Each structure stands twice: as C-alpha cells, then as structure tokens.
C-alpha cells in the first residue's frame, strides 16, 4: 500500500539552499490588484525564492527535496492569494506537465528529483488534487482564465469519480486512488481527516455539481467529532473507519495526532468553522497541555511526543486563539520567517486567514 505523505520527516531540520530567484524578464511591479491579495508581496517573494524553483517545482525541503501534488497545490493557492499571476503560471506549468499525467485525470502524488523517471509513485493523493483544483478555480474566476476553470473542472470530476466514495456506510474522501478502501485493507477504509479541505468543497461543487461535496463536508465534520480518540481526545493522522465499529488509528501508521492532523484547525477556520468540538480539544491540548505550542501527541497515551516551536506551527495555535477569543498574534509571528516548506506554508495560509477574517488580531 502506498504510504502517502508520512510527515514524520518534517521535524528534522534540513537547511534549504536559497534558490535562484525566478528569472524576471519584465521589470517587477506587475502584481495584480485583484482582491485576493491576502498574502503580502514580501512574504510570498521570500517563500517562493526559497521553496519554488524556476521550473515551478515546490520543494519539500524536509522530505529529501521531493515535490508532491500537495505542495504544488499549496504553491498555486498561495500564489493566488498573493496575486502573483506569473508565479501561479510557473507552478501550474510544472504541475500540469510533470504530475497531471494519470489516466484518470488526477495528479501523480510524488516527484523525486533524484529518480528517473521522476514520478516515483503514480498513486494520487486526494488533498493535492483538491488544492490544485481549488486554486485553479479561484484563480480562473478572479483572473478570468477559462483554461484554469476547465482544468479545475476536470480534476473536480475525476475526484468525484475516483476518491469521493461511499465506503462502510459513509461518504468518504479516500486519501488515494489505490490502497485505502474497504476492499483493499482489512481495516479499510483508511482515511486522513486532514485531507478534507472544507473551504474548497463549495467551490468544487460549482464545477462538478454531480458530486455530493456538501455530503462530503458533513461526513467530514461527523468523522472529526467521532475521531477524538485517546485521553487527549485528538484525531489521529491516519484513521480506520470500518462499518459498524468505532474509529481507531489505522494499522501500520504511527498512532499520533501529528503533522497531518494539526492543519485540521486551520482548514476548519478557513472554512468559517471556529467552534467545533475537535477544535476545542486541540485548543485545550495546545494551550493548556503544551504551553501554547502545537504538539505531536500519542493517541493511546495522550502524551506529547514533541512540541513544535517553529513559527509556522506556533502560528496555527496563535490563529486558533485569535479566532476563538481575539488574542493578538504575537509580534514575532507577524512576518514569514521561512524555515521549511511545510510550516512556512501553514504560516502563510494562517496569516492570510487572520488578515482577511480577523484583522484585529494583527493590530
């Protein structure tokens, strides 16, 4: 079975070499004035100089400098939020030519610069496809690019055909096309609740209305509530959701609330959901148990295995605190300090949310 996106490598510090800034043919100053600009030009320039190479490849510097559909989708979404049409085109070009090659119209999830051919796992990772389609749809509508919208539509339909499925009595989002279903695993379906990017579902519903995105959102909310497991009542990264049995950490994965699950908070907030029971459990764990820092928590014991002091991770906790009780974002978290791809990505998504929805936390 493809073990998608095991994020445990993300704690390790790998210094990222500064990438050559993207070749500029035309004098800068051409950033769009569209309303999407919730990420500052400086922050985005710092991010893309560090994690986006000239070919449009978003580099996961903590995972052997590979690229993946999730990173490409994040990159496109951030470029859109920064109003950077050129950067968006750059990342999309790589995504389209290198990853969007599957027969079913979804993206291959893993691309390794050291391998030949570069695609080392043709399986899809559904969160990557959701991010790519979502970013294309937003950019296509805001910037009036019909090709973006039609590409987004094709991906949204393919998602509906391949990974949005009724399994074990629920409408679920399979994490990949192969390897996770009831038919493929004894403890199937195995799900990753951090693949439910709730803010994208209404947008994808406009493109592929034949898919029950609202039902998928509802089942995601229900699963999140049921997935509060162990003493800390936190959702594990990888969860087994068999018919007629309670949810449990999936076999073969570390039973942790880890690098995957910690972004659930952000996704819910970005979708306008500030007060679900799972967010309360996470807030309690971060603020009360771990001194304001996100933590990797062992599900069976409820004990923290690591506290994540990186600014990108702390920003998640600060954003949650801001959304729930208006706590101001600490001064050291008001600018991107690019460290590694993943926390930097979460940082920019958090900051864009706060600046758009909770500007008072930045005063």
């Amino acid at each position: 079975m493809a073990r998608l996106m095991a994020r445990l490598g993300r704690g390790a510090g790998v210094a990222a070499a500064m990438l050559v800034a993207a070749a500029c043919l035309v004098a800068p100053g051409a950033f769009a004035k569209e309303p999407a600009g919730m990420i500052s030009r400086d922050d985005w320039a710092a991010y893309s100089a560090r994690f986006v190479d000239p070919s449009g490849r978003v580099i996961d510097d903590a995972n052997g400098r590979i690229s993946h559909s999730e990173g490409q989708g994040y990159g496109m979404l951030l470029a859109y939020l920064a109003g950077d049409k050129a950067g968006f085109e750059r990342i999309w070009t790589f995504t389209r030519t290198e990853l969007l090659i599957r027969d079913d119209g979804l993206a291959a999830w893993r691309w390794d610069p050291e391998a030949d051919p570069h695609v080392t796992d043709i399986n899809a990772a559904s969160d990557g496809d959701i991010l790519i389609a979502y970013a294309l749809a937003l950019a296509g509508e805001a910037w009036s690019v019909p090709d973006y919208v039609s590409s987004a539509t094709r991906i949204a339909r393919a998602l509906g055909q391949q990974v949005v499925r009724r399994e074990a009595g629920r409408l679920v989002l399979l994490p990949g096309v192969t390897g996770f279903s009831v038919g493929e695993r004894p403890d199937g379906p195995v799900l990753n609740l951090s693949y439910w990017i709730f803010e994208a579902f209404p947008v994808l519903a406009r493109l592929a209305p034949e898919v029950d995105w609202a039902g998928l959102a509802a089942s995601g909310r229900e699963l999140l509530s049921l997935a509060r497991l162990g003493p800390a009542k936190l959702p594990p990264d990888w969860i087994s959701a068999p018919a007629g049995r309670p949810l449990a950490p999936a076999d073969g994965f570390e039973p942790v609330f880890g690098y995957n699950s910690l972004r659930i908070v952000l996704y819910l907030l970005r979708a306008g959901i500030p007060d679900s029971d799972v967010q309360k459990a996470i807030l309690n764990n971060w603020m009360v148990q771990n001194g304001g820092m996100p933590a990797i928590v062992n599900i069976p014991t409820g004990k923290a295995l690591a506290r994540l002091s990186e600014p990108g991770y702390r920003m998640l906790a600060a954003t949650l605190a801001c959304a729930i009780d208006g706590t101001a974002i600490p001064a050291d978290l008001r600018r991107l300090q690019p460290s590694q791809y993943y926390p930097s990505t979460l940082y920019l998504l958090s900051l864009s949310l706060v600046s758009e929805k909770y500007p008072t936390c930045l005063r």
Partner: protein
Amino acid sequence: MSSLRVLLLILVGAAAVPAIGQQLASPSENGAAPAGAATTPKVDESALRFFAAQGDKQRLDAEIARLRALYPNWQPPKDLFSPTPDQDPDIPRLWALFAEGKFSDIRAAIAQRQASEPGWQPPADLMERLDEGEAARRLVNASEAKQWASVLRIATDTPGMLVCANMDVLWRVAEAFVRTGTPQRAKDLFIYILTSCPNPQERVATAQKALQLLDGPDLDAVLARANPDNTPEFAGLREDLLRMRVGRAAQDTTLSVSPGDIAALEQLARNGSVADDALVLGWYAFRRGDAARAVDWFKLALDRQGGASAAEGYVLALAATGRAQEAEPIAYQWRDAGASNRKAYIDLMAGLLATAPPPRLEQSVVARFAPVVQEAKSATGAQALGWYAYNTGQIRTAASWFRTAVQWAPADEVSAYGLALVSQRLKDTATLDAIAASWAGKSERILALVSPAARRRLASRAPAIASQPAPISQPTPMPVSRPTAATAAPLPLNGALPDRLAGYEDGPASGASAPRGAPCSSAGDAAFRAGRVSPEEGLARGWCLLELNRPLEAINAFDIAVRDGAGRTAEDAAYGKSLAYMRLGLTNEAQVAAIETPQPPARAVTLSADLLAQRAIAAYRDARYVEAILALDERSRLAPEQQDLMSIRAWSYYHLRDFVSARRIFTALRDAGYPEAGAGIDAILAVTRQVRS
C-alpha cells in the same frame, strides 16, 4: 489529404479516448489553408527568424519542415537571415527560453507581461509551439508512468506535435496504441511515419520499434514500407525479426517456428561472436525437449560470456541428459548469480543426492552443498541431504536434515516421511508417533511405519512405496555434515562413524547378515548361506526379508527360488526380486529380473507398469525429465496414470520449461482435488512471470 489529416484520422480512430470528436477542429487545423486554395496563408515566422538569428540550423530545418506540413502552400521567406528591426525585445528572449526548454519561465514571463500590459498577446506561433512542447513533455512523462490512455488523450489534444521532428513522441503514441489494445492503430502510425519521415536512422529505428511492438500481418505491413531502392532498407532487421521469432518460441512452446528460421539463426549463432543467439537456441531446444542439443548451445553461450541464463540453461540441459555430475561444478560456480541459478544448483544436487543407490560423489561436492542449503533455507536441499545421509547409513545426520526440511516446509510429506523413517530406525518413537499423528489420514506410508495393518495394505499394492530407499552399504560413504540450525548439540562435521554404527544396528553392516528379531526362515541361516534350502523356503524368506525392508538380502533369497524353482514359485520369485530391485531404486535390474521367468499376463502387465512407474520416478529424481516422461508414456499404454504419476509428469514438464503442458496437467489434477497441484500452478506462475531472454 494532408499528412496531418491522416494522423488525425489515426488518432480519432482511438475510440477509447474520450471527447475526441471535438478535437478535430484543432487550432492548427483551423490555421491551415483549405486544400487547393491559392491564397498564401498567414504563417507566423517568428520562430524561424529566431532560429535563423541563432544560427540553429537543426531547429530551423525542423521548423521549416513543421510549417510545410501545416501549410502545404507555404514557402520559407528568402530574407530569413536579414535583421528584423521591428522586434519587440521580449520576443527573442521568449524564443530563447523556448529553445532551452524553459517552459515554466516562458509561461511566467507572459503572465507577467500581460499583468503589466493588459491586452498584450505573445506571437501565436510561440504559443502553439509552447503548447506542443509542454504536451510532448507531458506525454513523455505519462508514457514513462505507463499511463497509456493519458498518452493518447494528450496526443489527440495536441496533434500539432505529432511531426517527424518529434519522433520519440510518435513512437510513444504507437506504444500507447499497442498497450491499450489497438495494435492496428500503431501499425497505421508506423506506416504514417515511414510514409512521411525521411531521416534514415529514424526510419530504421521506427521499424525496430514496430518489431518490438507488433507481430504478424501488422508487422509485415509496416516492414513493407521500406524504401524500394537497390538494397532493401530494412534488410538488417530481418535478423532481428528472426531472433525475435525464435526468442518468443523459446519462451512459449505453443508458438511454432519454421525449420528454416532455426537453421538461419543457427547459422548466425555459429558465425557470430556474442552469446545471445546461442542462448536463444539453447532455450528453444531445451523447452522443446531436445536437451542434448540444448547442452551444445548453452555451452557455446557460456563460452561467449552468456552469463547467468547460459549457466542455468547449461546446468538444466546437462542434468536432463543424465550428466548431472558434470553439471555440478558449473551449477555451483553460478549459484549466486540469481534465484534461478540457485534453484538450478539446489535441484541438481537434490537430484544427485536423493538417488538410491547413492552415486559416488567427491566429498567436496557434498560438503559445499550443505551451506548453500542452509543459506537458502531450501527444504528440497535439506531433504536430499537427508536421503543421501540415510542411503549412506548416516542415520542421525539424516534425521537432522529431515528435521530441518520439515521445519522449512512443514507441509512437505516426503520430508516428514523421511524423518519418520529415520526416527523409526533410531527407535525415536516420540518423534515417530508425533509425525504419524500429524499426518494421520494424509499419508498412508507414514501410517504404515507405525501400523502393521497399514503396512499390509500398502504391501498388497506394492510397489507403491516409491521413494523409500533402504539404507544400503557403500564402500566409502561420503560423510554428510549436519544442518547447523536444527541440531541442538553440534556434532563433529564428520559424524559418519557413529552414525553408521547407529544406522546399521539392524542392517547389513558387512557381508555377514544376521537378522535379529523375527527370523525369516525356518531353515538356519547357515543352511541358507550354503544354498541348501528349497525354492519354496527361498521364496518365503525373500518375501519376509522384503517385508523387513531388507531388499538386498531378499534378492539373494528370491534368486534361490528363481534358480531352483519352477512354475508358480519361480514366477513369484522373479516378481519378488524385481520388487526388491525396485525398492533399491535399481529399475534396470528390476526389469531384467522380471523377465527372468515368464509372468502370467495380468501380473506381467502390472509388473511392467510398476516398473515403468519406478523408472519414471527414478528418472525424475535424477533430473532426467525427458526420460521420466518417456517412461510414463510407455506406462500409460499399459495402465491408467494415477494422480501421483500425473503429478510427476507435470513436474517433469515444468522442469523442462514446457509450462503449457505442465499447467494443463496441474489444472486437471487440481480440478480432481489433488492437493499438490496448487503448488505446481503457483510455481509455473512464479517462473513465467519472469521474462527470460
């Protein structure tokens, strides 16, 4: 009809590709001049001018060819190399990026320019070339990932890239047609290439691709497109075609090749200096049962550095011609070259060692086998070492090896039987009873070791006790080292002496046999040794000794009855003698004995059938698979083939790599509920999945 239109028709015929109908009106098609129109089309020549300015002759020519394909009435401008003062300075830079394949940079630059200068449009030709360049890259990526439907979809979406200048892309599209089950479209595409593309190297390479992907009339149709000049364009490919045909037939015995093809390849192989052709011929001969010829070809291949496959074939073929001992050094030398080589070595040694009577082997040959068995955890090897030790009187060592074999393959009845047999001889009733209990209802011969009733039942159907070699003396039995893992208390490597004493406690340790326990004759042993016994007494004593599993002595007893007796007594004695020889695995002697005295017709038939069964079994264990099948064929004219013999037949075909025949029999056996058949089918699948060249 323009060649582009031909190509579109080929692509559109790919009904598997969705939404293709809409693709007919592709941008390039729209831009093309209507056929026969006299007006000069408006052709974007910015790429031409850029390549000309760069002095990039190759790209310039490719672009001219491309534009000509698109616009048949178009002529390249005369002033290509004169400067063009009107240029937007970004345009040459974009073309420069294009020439470097930096598609993402071009896309970003265009977006940036358009953001700062709304309404700005890049040259249409650049956009078209960019689309095609990206599509080609994406198509290659999809093809590398074996996403064949995706390959066809990309090709259909961007037919403009399907030109002679993108030969690699054309070949990948052709492969995608084959992989998606429409080889005739691949044929059409190859023909399109050979009709439209002039580059000689690429034409030959195209024919080679066709050779790999097509066969039969489709392939012939492609090769017929050779340029009709003096020397046939694809003459060199005839040899490749020949190699491929014989190579496929070597893999699959259901394919036939003409004797002319074989002779031609043999000629090539002899005249050449590389191993490949000899190797193909070796496998071809071997899998068609001509092991002797295969030996010669494999030898040639091996001499020409044919590597692991040549070594494997050589070993198998030598073994199949009864030259297993000769094969052993090669098999040993190549044992680590691959899984097949290791298996060939272990099977070869197993065949050698499990023969009864044991062959004379160099001590080093036996000694160096044991570590390989240990490392490979081969139950077959362990069992063979068990039989060898048993047959040479090293009973305790035999017990260790059988125990090891049982550990590695608990479901293997032969290993369990071996362990039960030696346990009985060692009076290890605990082990014996445990084995008998776990095989209750599954193995009659194991039951027979603990149950006299079962023994009688089995004896009445003699000689079904096939693989039950009795320990017999050998002048200098080769000591067998014991398995290291399975022995609780390690014994000296040369544990032969104590073993022999232990093993021979009830066996003929020397010429003077002194049966203990129940005497087998009312007459005294001395009288018997002096030959002063009646034929009837000799016959009775023979049966008795055979019952005690002491066939050598039984033969002596039966001999008296044959020599001195008459009528029924002599017949019975001859029959008993041949059974005793069979018990020893000496089938030739058994046959001689059987015809010493005319047998009643019914028994003669039974005896012959049994003899042939024994001979087949012996040949099989000796890895002489062709002979095993011949014996079974002969036997099948006398008596119906039981399931165990069918199984041996199937395994013989298997070892001869005739997987089609093996599979047919295993399937029939499986359908009849024969338990071992599944293992045979699995083994075939495991082997046939590996493509051998």
